[in-house]
């Protein structure tokens, strides 16, 4: 793993070390550095109050510094959540439709399978783009680690992507490949379910307070909004009546589930006031409220008795916006939550930390006092 010549020179220069006099082969010597100072530190404002200002009393913190590290993912991850969810829901709908009908939904099946295939490809690209070292993306398949939602998700995506593609392409060939394609379609449909939901588990299985607090409700939200997203997207295509009815009912079911789930998430995260703040305030709060409005609008348009092309387009757009908004809202809420040390402290002091999982809180005070005492 020894770095190349110019990288070693850059490393030595960043460390103000003269390579003619020094041997750099320690554990951290390969760490690339030398860009201007890491943003995290530059973003740190100077502590302009008395140093002992926040160091005691009920609401003590360490100069208000975050206790957690902010999630390092960029926009590509919430975008993947949307793409993955849509692909998963679409492929499920496609396969159910294909198995329960004798061809009247072939158009829908073809389009949904194409959405699945596209979702698989785009999703994988988005995730690789977000990696710190994209060239090592295959390492995602080095091990299967069930404790890691990302490991489970990576294997699911790795399995789904080719299957989605095959089920979208092979059936046109007809004959044996055609049948194989259809068979793979069933697998795709099956994989679509975890694909649409694992991303919620991925978020809630972290130390970020607002995500951790919604571990029971967020999966419903992501799956509901996946259905809505798939429905909205498929709704934009020209479908026959049966297909249109299937899509709208599927979409409505999803949007109802999504709205119920948003309420459930809000309830979960607001158990501890400080934990729920990102959904009420700031960018994440705004996105959260906007996406609910879009989803309600899309639902209303779907339930509107009269149908028409324009109506379909409007509801599809609102549905898509709602679904995208929910994911970005949740993503930025997590970043804000990680930046706020009081979110973790209050959550854990309220018994939602180790106590919630093990039944007893940690010793965290003189005289062996427990966190929740």
């Amino acid at each position, binding site marked *: 793993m020894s770095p190349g010549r110019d990288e070693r020179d850059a490393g030595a220069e960043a460390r103000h070390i003269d390579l003619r006099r020094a041997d750099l082969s320690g554990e951290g010597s390969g760490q*690339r550095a030398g860009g201007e100072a890491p943003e995290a530190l530059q973003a740190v404002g100077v502590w302009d109050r008395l140093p002992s200002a926040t160091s005691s009393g009920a609401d003590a913190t360490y100069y208000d510094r975050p206790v957690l590290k902010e999630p390092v993912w960029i926009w590509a991850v919430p975008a993947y959540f949307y793409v993955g969810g849509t692909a998963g829901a679409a492929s499920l709908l496609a396969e159910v439709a294909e198995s*329960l009908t004798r061809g009247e939904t072939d158009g829908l099946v073809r389009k949904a399978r194409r959405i699945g295939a596209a979702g698989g490809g785009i999703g994988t690209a988005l995730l690789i783009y977000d990696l710190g070292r994209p060239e090592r993306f295959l390492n995602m398949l080095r091990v299967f680690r069930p404790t890691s939602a990302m490991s489970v998700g990576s294997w699911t995506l790795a399995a789904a992507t080719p299957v989605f593609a095959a089920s979208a392409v092979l059936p046109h060939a007809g004959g044996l490949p055609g049948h194989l394609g259809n068979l793979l379609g069933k697998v795709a449909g099956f994989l679509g379910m975890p694909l649409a939901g694992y991303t919620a588990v991925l978020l809630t299985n972290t130390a970020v307070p607002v995500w951790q607090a919604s571990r029971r409700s967020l999966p419903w939200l992501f799956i509901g909004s996946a259905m809505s997203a798939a429905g909205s997207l498929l709704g934009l295509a020209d479908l026959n009546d049966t297909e249109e009815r299937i*899509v709208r009912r599927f979409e409505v079911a999803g949007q109802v589930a999504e709205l119920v789930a948003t309420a459930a998430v809000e309830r979960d995260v607001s158990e501890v006031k400080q934990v729920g703040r990102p959904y009420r305030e700031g960018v994440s709060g705004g996105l959260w409220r906007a996406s609910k409005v879009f989803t309600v609008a899309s639902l209303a348009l779907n339930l509107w008795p009269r149908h028409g092309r324009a109506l379909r387009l409007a509801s599809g757009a609102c549905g898509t916006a709602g679904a995208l908004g929910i994911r970005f809202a949740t993503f930025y809420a997590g970043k804000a939550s990680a930046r706020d040390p009081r979110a973790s402290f209050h959550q854990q002091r309220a018994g939602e930390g180790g106590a919630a999982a093990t039944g007893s809180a940690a010793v965290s005070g003189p005289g062996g006092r427990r966190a929740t005492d």
Partner: protein
Amino acid sequence: MSPKGFFTDTTVCIGCKACEVACKQWNQLPDDGLFFTGMSLDNTIDVGASTWRHVAFVERPAPLGGQVTGMGNLSWLMMSDVCKHCKRAGCLEACPTGAIVRTEFDSVYVQPDICNGCGYCISGCPFGVIDRREEDGRAWKCTLCYDRLQDGMTPACAQACPTESIVFGELNDLQAQAEKRVEQLHSRGMTEAYLYGADAGNQPGTGGLNAFFLLVDKPEVYNLPPDPIAPAMEAGEAWRSMAAAALGMAVAAFGAVLTSRTGARP
């Protein structure tokens, strides 16, 4: 190999930062930039990708048990923070590539030749230790000097510490030593001393820490979580609700198709 670890007695820490520098020298890590922070004598702020030891400085308007100062109600706590090498490690359980591994010394080690910088360990750590350096793209943290341990050498930070505030050794020996030290401090008037993360009973959420601490104030004061939990401990609930939701989606799909199909052939 039996578990190795650190017992950090913060009551003898003099905030000299030798541990921080010895770690940077042994691992040949780059600096984190030069910023005056105004946070007492702490210009390092936190452990991170290039700083695997951070010394916290807490000026408190409160006296320290057993200490008399003419400055009135004042005490100055110092503490050298590091990766806790948790028994149940959020980073380890999150790492999809298997870059992070549990070593024969029960420490948690990040393999820099494997990590692809997915960043999931960073959100998985309840102590905010492991981080990614932007120019490098990979996640880094303390290795408990896994390379030195191959030759039975003491980790660089523990060897350097002038007042043996950081003690390296067999975990069970350290736990016994820590208990005795707490009793000694209590007998000398420092009744606020307690152990943080000494074992599973002390900190159920992480199963105990291989690098545990003797503190004299609430963990929050040192920027430590009061009741941390390894996220995977609660994974079951999320997976179950996802399964239910996925099933619901399937039912919705079947329902939508069954109620909409007419049985016609194309």
